[in-house]
């Protein structure tokens, strides 16, 4: 009995260790869970891209389920998700609004002209202050905001088809009811 234990103990230790390491492989340390999930989306009022006089205010969105996509012309990963955003805009599956983060209007407009504009409106956060309120630390980031103005989900990094199909779309269906 003692002899068997002697051989089983290292095996048990190995399995526990392997379990932790396997879990660790799947964690991305760059994904810091946002404390804003389940909290009211910070209110903001920012100039609109391509509309000098216009303002985009988060209050306008009360009563609607919408996506706030934080992006910038200098952000390479944003171009990665751009085709998916275009597809979402075309199919009308989501009300997509953009926030142009720490960018110049000229560069942002040029990107939208070249690659297409999936947004109903783009708010311009030129100095990144609203970004700080939203806890933005790496673009692109996308927030799902419900009818009551509560943040329900935050995607850090580009939206992939998997994330859309498995997380965001089912969530939206629930929220829109």
């Amino acid at each position, binding site marked *: 009995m003692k002899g068997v234990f002697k051989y089983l103990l290292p095996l048990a230790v190995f399995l526990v260790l392997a379990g932790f390491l396997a879990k660790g492989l799947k964690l991305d*340390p*760059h994904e*810091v*869970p*946002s*404390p*804003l999930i389940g909290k009211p989306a910070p209110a903001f009022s920012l100039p609109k891209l391509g509309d000098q006089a216009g303002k985009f205010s988060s209050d306008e969105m009360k009563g609607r389920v919408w996506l706030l996509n934080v992006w910038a012309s200098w952000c390479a990963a944003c171009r990665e998700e751009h085709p998916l955003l275009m597809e979402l805009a075309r199919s009308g599956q989501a009300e997509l609004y953009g926030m142009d983060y*720490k960018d110049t209007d000229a560069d942002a407009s040029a990107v939208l002209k070249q690659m297409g504009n999936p947004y109903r409106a783009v708010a311009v956060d030129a*100095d*990144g*202050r609203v*970004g*700080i*309120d*939203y*806890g933005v*630390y*790496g673009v692109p980031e996308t927030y799902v905001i419900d009818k009551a103005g509560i943040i329900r989900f935050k995607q850090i990094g580009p939206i992939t088809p998997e994330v859309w199909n498995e997380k965001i779309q089912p969530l939206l269906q629930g929220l829109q009811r």
Partner: protein
Amino acid sequence: MKRWFSALLLIVPLMAVAGEAQPLADDPAMEARLKALSQELRCLVCQNQTLADSSAPLAEDLRREIRELIAKGMTDKEITDYLVVRYGDFVRYRPPLKTQTALLWGGPFLLLAMGLVALALVLRNRNRLMKDLPDEDDEEDAA
């Protein structure tokens, strides 16, 4: 003339140094507080650097934000809380003790306890083995 010129040249490096100094010291007390605070806060972009050390654009923005909050008269704790609300406990280099972080704080002590138990077991085992061996001193006495 030549000598004067070389003397002037000696001043050039001094001017270079002056050019690199950053326009920080508007208010030395504020800068000291900013430094102390930002050394306790993590830069979210380059995660193993403090806000004080990082030159990431976000870190610069956050330092600007902290300066403004200090100017508004907020306490250190209020400023830290302001950032925790936005970025979570992760921004703090000393996360608070709560259920979520219990393992983080208690883990080293848990490992220490496990190590001590293992040590005790090994020592007890070794003692038992030693007793089973014939005692050398006794043999010498007998001889």
